[in-house]
């Protein structure tokens, strides 16, 4: 039965995919990672792409995520906003956890915003809810 496919099939489980902390801001439309498949100073980025990119894409299905390999001497991440702005993040010699935490700080929605959105979604889903913020007063 072919279900544990690939090098680390835990990355394909729902629990792993939904555990992503990084939800991009609404303005971020494209997320690009440039790195090499060799080189010690690219190791953190390689691991970041291997472990963290699937949950990020799962949580942000409307964001285009691209990876470019073996084009750059030093790894970097670039985020493109819909206003035309860009954010360049240099990730030379940084571990995957450092990169992830920095991304959450810089291009991710804050925890409060996410909680408010979850609450709003729940209130809208359930027609039996009434009170502040619901459709029925």
């Amino acid at each position, binding site marked *: 039965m072919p279900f544990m496919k690939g090098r680390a099939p835990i990355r394909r489980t729902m629990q792993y995919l939904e555990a992503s902390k990084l939800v991009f*801001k609404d*303005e971020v439309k494209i997320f690009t990672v440039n790195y090499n498949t060799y080189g010690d*100073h690219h190791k953190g980025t390689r691991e970041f792409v291997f472990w963290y990119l699937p949950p990020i894409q799962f949580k942000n299905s409307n964001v285009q995520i691209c990876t470019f390999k073996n084009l750059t*001497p*030093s790894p970097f991440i670039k985020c493109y*906003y819909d*206003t035309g*702005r860009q*954010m*360049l*993040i*240099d*990730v*030379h*010699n*940084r571990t995957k956890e450092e990169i992830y935490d*920095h991304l959450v*700080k*810089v*291009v991710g929605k804050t925890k*409060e915003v996410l909680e*408010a959105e979850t609450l*709003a979604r729940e209130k809208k889903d359930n027609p039996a809810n009434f009170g*502040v*913020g619901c459709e029925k007063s």
Partner: protein
Amino acid sequence: MLSLNNITKISTLPTTNLQILRWRRKPRWVPVAKSKMFRVPQRPVISEDEAMEIKRLFNNYRTQMKSIRRYMVEKTMASFARTADPKDIQRIQDEDFARCSKINDEWNASVQVDRVKFFKDTFENYINSAKESLRKHEELNQLQLEEAEKLVAEQKEAAKTFITEANIDEAIERALANPVDYNFAIDLDGNK
């Protein structure tokens, strides 16, 4: 079935402090009891001072509770509030981008230090290793040259004993004059 065991169990029930509840209050369709027909309930008399004190405390309590409730409502409303004005939205986005850019610039600056040092060190290593290999190559060349020189010197020395056209007559005469007898035996050490 009534047995000795059952009787002992019944006797241990707490019958003295059991209060059987018939109903909580009289049903509304049941007429008023004769003893309660003309009952006039006594109004509770609270002295003026006490009444004022109670009222003051109640007012304080209600004010505080009202203020807390309004504060909480305001806070919740603020989290749900969304401006529809595009200028406002743009301003909020700009401010947010500026704040995040600042954090990112600090991060990039610290990474840049790392990166520049790394590439500088790599470049220096390349140059040093190239210089080292060049030096080794030169050394090897020098050694080979010395070897060649030694060989040539040896041969030059040996050339002095060569037999050329000039001294062939002399050599023949010398050879004829000194015959060498090879008819001898040698032991393991090379002695005759």
